[in-house]
């Protein structure tokens, strides 16, 4: 069991981040403290195992060729891909507005029914518009 006040210093020391003064302090401490000596050995072993196990991965040899192909594909893609989604949004809004107008024309509908329908339709339209916009522009 290492002395709590030396644990971070031991980790700094293993990572080569301890200052010369702190390094000297730790060395004099571990000469007299078996717990910290053991913890230092454990962390050094762990550091070696991590370095060995977490080897640097390499990109595949095809990376550049595939990227070039994807760039060429993007160049061919029409620029107005967002247009259908904008039209979708417009369509939802129009639908909501039309529904509101229709309800408003019913002969026996009271004003409160028409107002509620209008508010509901507008909310629906805004909701759908928001969804369409998020789908188009979200997470970029």
């Amino acid at each position, binding site marked *: 069991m290492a002395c709590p006040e030396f644990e971070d210093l031991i*980790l700094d020391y293993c990572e080569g981040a301890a200052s010369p003064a702190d390094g000297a302090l730790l060395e004099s401490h571990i000469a007299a403290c078996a717990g910290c000596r053991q913890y230092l050995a454990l*962390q050094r072993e762990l550091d070696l195992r991590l370095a060995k196990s977490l*080897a*640097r*991965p390499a990109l595949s040899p095809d990376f550049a060729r595939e990227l070039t192909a994807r760039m060429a594909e*993007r160049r061919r893609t029409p620029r107005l891909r967002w247009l259908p989604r904008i039209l979708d949004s417009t369509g939802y809004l129009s639908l909501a507005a039309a529904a509101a107008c229709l309800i408003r024309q019913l002969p026996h509908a009271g004003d409160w029914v028409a107002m509620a329908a209008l508010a509901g339709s507008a909310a629906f339209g805004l909701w759908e518009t928001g969804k369409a916009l998020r789908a188009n522009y979200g997470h970029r």
Partner: protein
Amino acid sequence: MDGVSGIQAFERLLDEYRDKVFRLACSLLGNEAAAEDATQETFLKIWKSLPGFRGESSVSTWIYAIARNTCLTRRRMAAAQRTISLDAADAAAIPSHDPPAGSAADLRAAIGRLPAKYARVLVLFYLEDRSYQQVALALDLPMGTVKTYLHRAKKELAVLLAAPATQKEDAIPWPALNSKI
């Protein structure tokens, strides 16, 4: 920026940053194949946005931000749609190129049990040759936070690896690290 100088600028960025972006993607996605695909997508976005880059932040900050957003979007999509099989992720798990054996498997299982933010910093620290600065830059964290997370990760790892064998046997396998990171 004209066409030729734009292409040259992009090629310079690609040469300088593709491996760094790939390692960041590995630490965030936990899977080499997914990380490579995210790296490609990141550079497609860079290529598309480069003419509009005004230098309001440093190039490296800008590139790492695009890479992080790309990886995080992929993780969210994978989580929402469940299109990525954890078994498939296991087959192509990161860092090591050899099948884990014995203590290496224990080590990975122990990393998988760490809180994701600690595991992410720990993995990237070793992928980046023990550079606090590189990890801080790539993950957009203060250097002190990187060091704190790294130390907490190592302290917890030491405890987990010292646990009795019976507890190690049901340790979470490497793909769990993928899903947490």
